[in-house]
Each structure stands twice: as C-alpha cells, then as structure tokens.
C-alpha cells in the first residue's frame, strides 16, 4: 500500500494505492487519527487505486467516521471501484460513510 497526501484548501486529501488490509490499515488509521485530532481536520480518502479493503481496513475507516460524527471534522470517501464498492456493500457500509464518485466532489463535500 502506498499513500499520497496533499492539502487542498483546509482539507487533507489522502490517495491510497494498493491493498487496505491487516498489514497496511494501521498506517492509514494512524494518519486519519492525527489529521482528525486537529480541530476541524477534515479528510478525503481517494480509493481510485485501492485494490481491496479487508475488515482491518473497514475498522480504521469506521473509527474515523465515528470520530467525524462526534466532532466538526468531516470524512469523505471517493472513487470506489466496482470491486471496492461491492465490499462496502457486503459490509453494510454504503450508508454509513459519505461517499462521492470523484475526488473533486469529495473535496467540496469535506470543505
């Protein structure tokens, strides 16, 4: 898994590439936690190049979504491939997260 980070306006945009699983999810989890620890720290996670997400990946996303829900931060996910979207669906996550088709829409929704 590779992660690329960029600041767009006041939003942190994370582009994840590869597999989000038990080995790699803690890296994303730590980053989400530290960004969202800042007041109003909002995040967009771009999934366009994510191959798959295992339960360990959903775990860190769910923790971040709960945190956003309880604070002024926003977490928006973008660019889910058909495969990744199917995994979100299997896990019952499509309605729990803010999800947009493109990174641009996600950045708008997060700011």
């Amino acid at each position, binding site marked *: 898994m590779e992660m690329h980070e960029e600041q767009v306006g006041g939003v942190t945009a994370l582009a994840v590439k590869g597999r989000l699983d038990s080995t790699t999810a803690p890296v994303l989890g730590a980053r989400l936690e530290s960004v969202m620890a800042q007041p109003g720290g909002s995040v967009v996670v771009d999934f366009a190049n994510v191959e798959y997400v*295992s339960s360990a990946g959903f775990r860190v996303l769910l923790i971040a979504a709960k945190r956003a829900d309880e604070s002024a931060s926003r977490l928006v996910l973008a660019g889910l491939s058909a495969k990744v979207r199917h*995994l979100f669906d299997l896990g019952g996550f499509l309605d729990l997260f803010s999800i947009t088709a493109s990174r641009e829409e996600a950045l708008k929704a997060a700011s």
Partner: protein
Amino acid sequence: MRRAVVSITRAEGAVEEVQASLDGLAAHHAVPPDALCDMQIALDEALTNILTHGFDDGEPHRIDVTLAIEPTVIRAEIEDDCVAFDPLSAAAPDLTASLKERRLGGLGVHFMRRLMSDVGYERIGTRNRLVLRRVLNKG
C-alpha cells in the same frame, strides 16, 4: 507448481508471506483478479483471527497454510495448533446498525463467508483445520 505451503511460527510478517506466496501462485496460473482478491481478503481475515486469538497465550504455535490452484477453484487449507475456534459458529454482525451503534467485531468472518464459495471447519484432535474455496470464474 500448483501448490504452495507456508508455515508460520510467529505473527510478524506472517500475513505478508502468505499473501506473496498466493500472488506468485496466482500469477503463474493466470488466476482471475476477482478470485485472487477474494482469496487474499479471506486469508487476511482467517490468519488475523488465528494470530490474534490463538497466538496470545505465550505458548509456541504453528500454522500450516497450503494454497492450491485446481482446475476450477482456488483453495486454501489452514491448520493450526491453537485453542479450538470455529469461525462458522461466530455470530453475524448487525449490518443495519447506525454509525453510533455499529460494532467492529464479526466483520472478518462475515467477509470470509460471503467472499468464498464455501468454508469448512473441523477440529481434529488438538488442531483447527479451516478450508477456504473460491471458484475461479463466477458465472
């Protein structure tokens, strides 16, 4: 080579080793990406469960993973000498809970069951044996 065997005696790096072994086997036998993806997820879930719940008693343990590409299925057999654990007996997570009420447990087994064509568990003496099968081409 249609089979690969990986033995695990410590948690560190174990999942990556099995993953790499499956990637190698899949590339060699042109396994469809969708089937590979589902098997990688199921293995991540199964091994994480064993390493988390079976390796935490301070005793030495061993997991033997056999990966096989058969004409129509990809199969993984996972045998360990840890405490008896039947993932198929685990309660299904409540997928309809709201964000506040949504719990983190049970999801791994749920994914394993939904992504595999079938999952079998047996306790043989002091060993757990889990067999994961995924058809190569879903109709």
